[in-house]
């Protein structure tokens, strides 16, 4: 049993402590916004926030983050600025990687209010997008942070 706060709600999960957080979210809590893409922290499709920091949930044992606050794409407010920017600039194509992209962007903007291209590239380099929406991701992060794209 591991206690967590997931999207603001306290939960006690029964998954074994060595279970990666991704599978606790998907298999046990039925939160399927975070995706399985590689299982080895190379693609970022599973990115969620733990204690406000973006993490690759496929490679983080739930037992190691007992007591932490976890935020997934499902936990963002309806009027979230990053999501609004993503819609305004029509970022997604297939959309599979986008929850992970958005959660990485949330983590970046919590640390850096107005990131430049280099800061965006550094923070987002762990999130692959095979559809190639990278230029729109850069622009959307700037829009969400009140900068001209």
């Amino acid at each position, binding site marked *: 049993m591991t206690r967590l706060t997931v999207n603001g709600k306290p939960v006690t999960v029964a998954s074994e402590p060595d279970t990666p957080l991704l599978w606790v979210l998907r298999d046990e809590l039925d939160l399927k916004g975070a995706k399985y893409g*590689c299982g080895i922290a190379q693609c970022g499709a599973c990115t969620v926030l733990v204690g406000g920091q973006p993490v690759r949930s496929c490679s983080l044992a739930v037992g190691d983050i007992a007591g932490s606050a976890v935020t997934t794409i499902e936990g963002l407010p309806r009027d979230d600025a990053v999501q609004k920017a993503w819609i305004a600039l*029509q970022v997604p194509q297939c*959309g599979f990687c986008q929850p992970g992209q958005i959660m990485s962007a949330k983590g970046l903007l919590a640390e850096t209010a107005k990131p430049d291209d280099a800061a965006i*590239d550094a923070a987002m380099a762990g999130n692959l997008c095979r559809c*190639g929406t990278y230029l729109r991701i850069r622009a959307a992060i700037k829009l969400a942070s009140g900068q001209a794209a």
Partner: protein
Amino acid sequence: MTIALDRRGFLAAGGAFTLSFVVAPQAGAQQAGATSPWTAYLTIGTDGRIALMSPTTEMGQGTHTAHAAIIADEIGVPLNWVKVDTPMPSDPFRRGGSMGSGGSAGVRAWWDPLRKVGASARQSLINAAAAQAGAPAAEVSIQDGQVRRGGKVLMPLGEAARLAATAPPAEGTPRDPATYRYVGKQTPRVDIPAKVRGEPVFSQDFTRPGMVYACAVLSPVWTGLARQINEAPALAVKGVQRVVTFPGGAAVIAGTQWAAMKGAAALEVSWASTAYDGLSSAAISAAMLAGLDKDGEALQARADGDAAAALSGAARIVEADYEVPYIAHTPMEPWNVTIETTADGGLEIWGPFQTQDRNRNTAARVAGLDPSKVKLHTLMLGGGFGRRLGDDGLPAAVLTALAVKKPVKFFWRREDEIGQGYYRPAQVARLRAGLDAAGKVVALHVRTAGPSMRQSFSPAGLPKGEVDGSSVQTLTDTLYRPGAYRVDWVRVDQVVPMAPWRAVGATQNGYFMESFLDDVAKAAGKDPVALRRELLAHDPRALKVIDRAAQEGDWGKPLPAGRARGFAFVYSYGSLCAQVVEASLENGEVKVHRVTCAIDCARVVTPDGARNQMEGGIVQGLSSALFEGIEVGNGACENRNFDSYRIMRINEAPAVIETHFIENDQVIGGIGEPGLPPATPALVNALFALTGKPIRKLPIMAQLANA
């Protein structure tokens, strides 16, 4: 209130498709009759909302938005009144006898039929409303979801739909596209808000009551079979229920996806040896290169004039050999499918399908069923790029479902998504151009050699002696006129499985031709754009595309030191696309600063969606050029995940991509694929301009590392 369902079907002009209306009951009402909603394009509810069955799979290319926009404009409703889904395979949605999405055909194949569907729906609604109101139909129109006569609202659309369901259907004439409100405008994608909120149910996210997970364990060597399986370590994993075996491997069954993966990692399998255990990239490469010398085996694909004679009479010959490796599709969603057996002994399947009939027929064959006993649902795809055109994973999944007798999600891990292949073919080419004394191209001979994708991918294979069109794609139908011209192909098959990869043969052949033209330009002392203009002097449409890209991309204008531009032009899938790539080399890494794209696809239905397709195609073309290629060793793909199969990341993507559309009254061209092929050679040509050294083998980074 209960409304009897009454479906009216009729054949529209040409008999190519069926338009049906279904008046759906209001929410909460008892359904008073059976319907087959997947046989109809449109279901118009009594609330006026429209359910559109699109014949295409939405995998990020945006065709569902394009189709919704066409229907909304033709009928005259707000775009958000149209909800789009992909139907089960049936005749109205088939092209050439089967249903599927490929060949950049989503808009160009369905533009005319869907306009006609929408127009006929509109006319039927108008006729029914006019009859009710005692008004001449010519005075009735539909605007913004309301049926109007003059300035007055006659009735809401839903009421007209209720009347139309019991009235004779009519045939309508499509509107003038100039009057469209959504088509051709900055229309937002219908699927994006949900995708941004993480709401869509991708195949990976789909569940059924009582469903179990089945993690595939597959032979790393192509065609390999399991010799011995020790189930005990897998069964010892908490949550694992059993192991199912099938030809080529096994599946570990568990109540959760994680337990199935853990069990799969623990399963001990020894694989029987195969005839291919020793196969390597070096051997594949050597066989292809040897093929280039086999004149007697070369199958002619195009011959204009006598290229051999023209080459022997030329003042000067330019010659070069090129090579590309097998490359993987790597959609971000690893393949998976959900299957359950039905009460009538059939199967119901939910998955990421680009070819609905092919997958349904394969499932039926494996299960020994008539295809009518297989219900196949298409879910949202986490990327396609051609990898979901096949059915290669399905037989093992069906066998597993039949063994488990519960709803089962059968899934591959990323290692199998990359390692089980169905790759873009490896291929080599030899190009020889003859120049006259004035430096004019008077002859060109292109020979390609490599495995036949059709042999690997098409159930019918490729008969001996026939040319695989994909092996010479964009070479046989090039718009260039290089004088005497010959294209031929030497078939060098391998066991490595292949499938169409976004833009298919245009990827490798576009690279061969366009890189070679820069070699020719250099030899002739000509500017690369000027050379292409000479070869396209007969084709004003192509010249316009070339000139637009050159102008917008600042071709010929000064650049900062250490930067260079490259140019390429490829005609594929009915669209003409030219690109300028601006690049530099910094500390051994290639940096792409800017890409300028001009594309003539004749008509742009959703401009921003099309722009996104250009951007994505360019990124994928640059990615494959720079990084991609599998390494074959010991009969297997040695790259198993993104740590060893490198694709472009955001920090490697260009700073700027600009797209310029050219529209005209020609036949509509494709958008999903044509933006990709020029990106690869345009980058190669920029590096050639920068360093003076041609890059004749991909990926680029491997060449730079070896230089």
